[in-house]
């Protein structure tokens, strides 16, 4: 008699009722078999043959059906709980993890897509809803934001806003700004609409000046005589097409001089639109706001420059015709024009156009023409006015030039990428650490968000890889050696998630936010190698610890259940991972020392991406070789490998959910806080209006200086 076979038969029979829970059945079966073995050993002393001792042992066991029934009843509750857990894993946990990953990753990529879309310039109103503009707007708010998109042209769509609010000069001004930029607008229609503006807003010189631009386009042509000179020093020849219209244009300009103000309403319209948009909580939303501000149309500036360039040669013609008084008025036009442009401006470009208008009066051509007037007093007045206004400009340029090298170095080392792009053009003071920090930290936060998304995707991929292993190990395996689902105990799960996920993330948080060792005072462009390595070490550690602790817990249980397990830990686990982490760690030390000593990245250009790929491959290697063993390892250990893989799936699902819970809310809140406190990117703040606070401060300063200078000039005159 084969005693082992008989024991197995009896044990199988006793546990037949537990077959719906294979792991439990195996446990109880082994227990019964072990007890039988002890019993047989006891009865061996009383019997002559082995068969007798076996039968005596079985008889003394009692009624086998009764025992089987007793075992079933005693374990029914546990089986129900296990079944519920398995069902929960299959129906809830794993799908929840997959959906969560796809949702978070999808949301992240959608925001990135919107960001790139907006930065390519696709931020005009007609594209609004496609770029994820807020959808829960009232009809009126949507109209103000987008215009009426059902109309044929952009300007017609903007006109619809004014038609709904005919009392508003802001909406009419906005409409005219759009009409002025549409090059295929019929000239007669354009003039009619601008004249309507003159009628609606009689104190506003803006419409007169726009009309003048239109008239000058038809009346004359400017030809540059000295193209080699800088723009503001060029000399222009006036080619007249319609003299009467030209005269009429300058009549219009002189008429506009008497109006109390010049308002384009660009700022007011931008304010209305920004107020409709919710406060930005994400960088992509903030960049959309910046893009909206950047998309403000300033067609008047071209008209102003056109007037500035046309005036001197026109005055020259008037002087040659003996119309000196009119010529004097025309030559003096630059001053009220420049001051009005300055008063109305809220962007640096407008201030620069005001300076350009002033500078025209210092050009050689202007000076020669003024001399012909034969009024040295007038000439002197114009010169002094222009020089004093230009002194402000020159002071700003001088400061910009002086501070530029320091500014560029500071920005390269300590500023965010956007800040480093925007600030050099402003030429303001060197920004403080308080002003640079939010933008810089925002970029680190965005990279960390991307890392979290990547890690989740990687875990999802590993869940799929585990499923492949399970299927592979199931094929051809008998019912007794199929992979089991063995969930680590609650204590083990707590250890796996605690040490494998929560602890590494907590250590990373302390290292980056509290310790001061993470080099966060350096810009991302300098510190990116170190950051990438830190994140990849973090990812590799999480994947490795989670995988290996789960495998150890499962191995212990498999051993207890009598499933064949490897005698030793694999070489990969013992050596490959520590060596990998060691290499990454050494690389990290080298990067960190280099970047902090020299304040520049160790790799740049094409080497960077190659380096990145190598390190990403290194991270994947922390888990992938293990899966290779699970998939292709010895067939005799197939049930063990399959069980490990099957048991890893819910653990990874749980780990994914934990990574989302630990990283997403915190990083989202941090992004919101940084976006809302960054003085560079903050646009449309209640206190100021401009692309950035730094630009707004600069523009306000220059405006004030111009205003003070004009007051002084007028007091002295």
């Amino acid at each position, binding site marked *: 008699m084969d005693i082992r076979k008989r024991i197995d038969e009896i044990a199988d029979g006793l546990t037949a009722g537990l077959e719906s829970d294979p792991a439990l059945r195996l*446990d109880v079966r082994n*227990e*019964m078999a072990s*007890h039988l073995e002890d019993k047989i050993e006891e009865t061996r002393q009383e019997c002559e043959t082995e068969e007798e001792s076996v039968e005596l042992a079985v008889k*003394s*066991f009692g009624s086998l059906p009764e025992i089987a029934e007793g*075992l079933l009843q*005693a374990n029914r509750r*546990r089986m129900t709980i296990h079944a519920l857990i398995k069902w929960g894993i299959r129906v809830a946990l794993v799908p929840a993890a997959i959906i969560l990953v796809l949702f978070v990753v999808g949301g992240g990529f959608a925001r990135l897509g919107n960001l790139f879309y907006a930065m390519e310039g696709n931020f005009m109103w007609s594209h609004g809803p496609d770029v994820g503009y807020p959808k829960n707007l009232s009809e009126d708010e949507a109209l103000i934001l987008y215009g009426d998109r059902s109309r044929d042209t952009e300007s017609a769509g903007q006109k619809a806003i004014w038609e709904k609010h005919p009392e508003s000069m802001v909406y009419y001004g906005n409409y005219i700004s759009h009409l002025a930029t549409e090059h295929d607008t019929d000239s007669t229609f354009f003039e009619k609409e601008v004249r309507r503006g003159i009628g609606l807003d009689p104190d506003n010189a803006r419409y007169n000046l726009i009309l003048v631009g239109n008239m000058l386009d038809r009346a004359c042509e400017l030809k540059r005589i000295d193209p080699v000179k800088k723009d503001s020093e060029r000399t222009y020849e006036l080619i007249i097409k319609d003299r009467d219209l030209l005269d009429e244009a300058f009549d219009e300009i002189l008429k506009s001089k008497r109006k109390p103000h010049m308002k384009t309403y660009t700022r007011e319209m931008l304010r209305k639109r920004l107020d409709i948009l919710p406060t930005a909580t994400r960088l992509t939303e903030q960049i959309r706001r910046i893009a909206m501000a950047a998309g403000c149309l300033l067609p008047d500036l071209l008209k102003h420059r056109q007037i500035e360039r046309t005036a001197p040669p026109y005055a020259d013609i008037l002087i040659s015709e003996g119309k000196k008084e009119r010529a004097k008025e025309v030559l003096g036009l630059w001053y009220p024009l420049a001051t009005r442009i300055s008063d109305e401006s809220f962007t640096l470009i407008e201030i620069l156009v005001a300076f350009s208008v002033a500078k025209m009066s210092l050009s050689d051509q202007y000076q020669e023409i003024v001399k012909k007037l034969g009024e040295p007093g007038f000439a002197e007045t114009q010169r002094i006015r222009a020089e004093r206004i230009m002194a402000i400009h020159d002071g700003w340029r001088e400061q910009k030039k002086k501070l530029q090298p320091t500014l560029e170095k500071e920005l390269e080392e300590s500023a965010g990428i956007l800040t480093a792009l925007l600030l050099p053009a402003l030429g303001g003071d060197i920004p403080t650490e308080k002003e640079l920090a939010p933008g810089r930290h925002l970029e680190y936060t965005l990279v960390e968000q991307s890392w979290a998304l990547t890690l989740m995707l990687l875990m999802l991929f590993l869940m799929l890889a585990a499923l492949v292993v399970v299927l592979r190990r199931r094929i051809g395996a008998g019912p007794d050696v199929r992979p089991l689902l063995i969930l680590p105990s609650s204590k083990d799960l707590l250890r796996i998630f605690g040490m494998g996920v929560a602890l590494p993330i907590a250590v990373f948080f302390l290292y980056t936010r509290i310790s001061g060792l993470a080099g966060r005072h350096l810009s991302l462009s300098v510190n990116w190698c170190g950051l990438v390595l830190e994140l990849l070490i973090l990812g590799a550690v999480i994947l490795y610890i989670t995988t290996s602790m789960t495998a150890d817990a499962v191995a212990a249980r498999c*051993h207890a259940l009598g499933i064949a397990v490897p005698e030793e830990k694999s070489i990969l686990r013992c050596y490959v991972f520590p060596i990998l982490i060691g290499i990454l760690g050494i690389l990290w030390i080298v990067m960190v020392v280099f970047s902090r000593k020299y304040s520049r990245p160790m790799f740049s250009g094409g080497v960077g991406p190659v380096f990145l790929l190598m390190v990403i491959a290194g991270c994947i290697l922390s888990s992938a070789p293990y899966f290779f063993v699970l998939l292709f390892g010895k067939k005799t250990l197939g049930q063990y490998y399959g069980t490990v893989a099957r048991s890893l799936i819910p653990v990874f699902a749980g780990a994914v959910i934990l990574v989302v819970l630990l990283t997403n809310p915190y990083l989202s809140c941090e992004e919101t806080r940084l976006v809302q406190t960054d003085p560079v990117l903050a646009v449309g703040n209640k206190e100021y209006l401009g692309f950035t606070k730094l630009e707004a401060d600069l523009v306000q300063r220059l405006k004030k200086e111009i205003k003070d200078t004009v007051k002084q000039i007028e007091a002295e005159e």
Partner: protein
Amino acid sequence: MAFDRDLVRSVAEPILLHVVSKRPMYGYEIIKVVNEKTDGAFVWKEGTLYPCLHRLEGDRLIKSQWQKAESGRSRKYYSITPKGTVRLKGKLKEWSGFTAAVEAVLMAPVGV
């Protein structure tokens, strides 16, 4: 002396908890120890023992762990949990009160 099966079953839980509270034991060993301590009065069958053990484990009053003996054979050892210790104390108190009450009736002089 053979005892009523229901009576034996009713005391199985406190006896088991008490036995494994002393030291971890496996099923076969538990039967032997109980038999010895009761001088053969309680001869538990496997059909009584294991369902009870598994029920107690399911209620988290005891826990189990497979261990390899020197002989190389693996055995499943049971030990008491903190929850089991609390239950055992309660059961002992209950048993003490129960037996006192029963004795007070059964052992009282006839006619009282």
